[in-house]
């Protein structure tokens, strides 16, 4: 039982990482990962929404009508995203500006709908929360690593501190995001063989 819980929590971090194995949530990964701080914030917000949505769906799974389940999931996810959006705009306005349109777009993040539909709606509350935590951590890990890489190589800084005298600006542009993600895929595939 303990092993099952542990597996629920850890599978999303490397083994079944939603970004690198299912290519889910690529829009924010490519769009927001220009700075380490922005990436981490996006990852944590998504993690929070994912955990709350998965917990709610698991809790309500017996009363949600199967015919309208996707509609219910989207209403629940939208409610948590809107709440996060309002809270961030009130208490962290600078972060709200940095995340921009990608914050409300969490509603259509494939990872959240995927985990609520495939896992949370069929499992108990504890497993749903652990799965959401693991998947959210996996997403946060990838977007943050990408953000750190792109900020260092693309801007020559990390968290605003200058590390490199020169930088390759292409890494901060959309083609650079794909290039950085490809590099991450190479590292991840090697890592998965070792694990």
């Amino acid at each position, binding site marked *: 039982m303990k092993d099952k819980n542990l597996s629920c929590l850890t599978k999303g971090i490397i083994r079944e990482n939603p970004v690198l194995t299912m290519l889910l949530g690529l829009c924010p990964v490519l769009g927001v990962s220009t700075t380490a701080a922005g990436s981490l914030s996006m990852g944590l917000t998504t993690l929070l929404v994912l955990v709350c949505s998965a917990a709610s769906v698991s809790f309500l799974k017996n009363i*949600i*009508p199967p015919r309208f389940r996707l509609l*219910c999931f989207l209403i629940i996810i*939208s*409610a948590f995203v809107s709440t996060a959006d*309002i809270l961030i*705009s*009130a208490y962290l306005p600078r972060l709200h*500006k940095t*995340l921009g349109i990608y914050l409300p777009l969490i509603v259509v993040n494939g990872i959240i709908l995927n985990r609520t539909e495939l896992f949370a709606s069929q499992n108990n509350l504890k497993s749903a929360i652990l799965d959401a935590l693991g998947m959210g951590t996996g997403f946060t890990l990838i977007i943050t690593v990408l953000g750190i890489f792109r900020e260092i190589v693309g801007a020559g800084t990390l968290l605003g501190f200058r590390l490199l005298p020169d930088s390759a600006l292409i890494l901060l542009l959309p083609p650079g995001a794909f290039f950085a993600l490809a590099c991450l895929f190479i590292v991840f595939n090697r890592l998965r063989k070792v694990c």
Partner: protein
Amino acid sequence: MKKTPSLFYQSLVVALIAAVSALLISVTHDLTDEARRQSTYSEEQKALKELLGTNFDNNPCAEKILISSPDSEEKLEFYPARRAKTIKSFAIKSYSDFAPGGRMEIMVGFNIDGSIIGSKILSAPHNIIKPAGNKASISSLAVNDAVNRAVGAYKKLNSGGLQ
């Protein structure tokens, strides 16, 4: 065989979930209203200080008035910066809908003779700012449009005499 619930029951559940979700959003919105107002206020204060310096002894935000836009029904905000009760400079909060992705808001600072001191972007759609946050990358068409609107509003106001 499991009995399928009636359409009425299914609709009721969906409506209940929607109602609880709406309640959560509205409660959060109401609870954070003051904090949001404060953050907008401090952002305006910061922009005014950057544009108009410290050559005023009033609170332009407290004295802001709404003025007519030169080309639409929409009102613009006018912030007078006074020293010894006389307007020394002022700022106008303008906007442009030419920014790709939505509305851009800009604060334009003016000397009392109508010459522009500078401008500061208050909000812009995310996709018109380069990732590095380079200000030069903001759509120049949108900035021009917003500044022109502020100038037009000033001219319209000035025809009635600034006090």
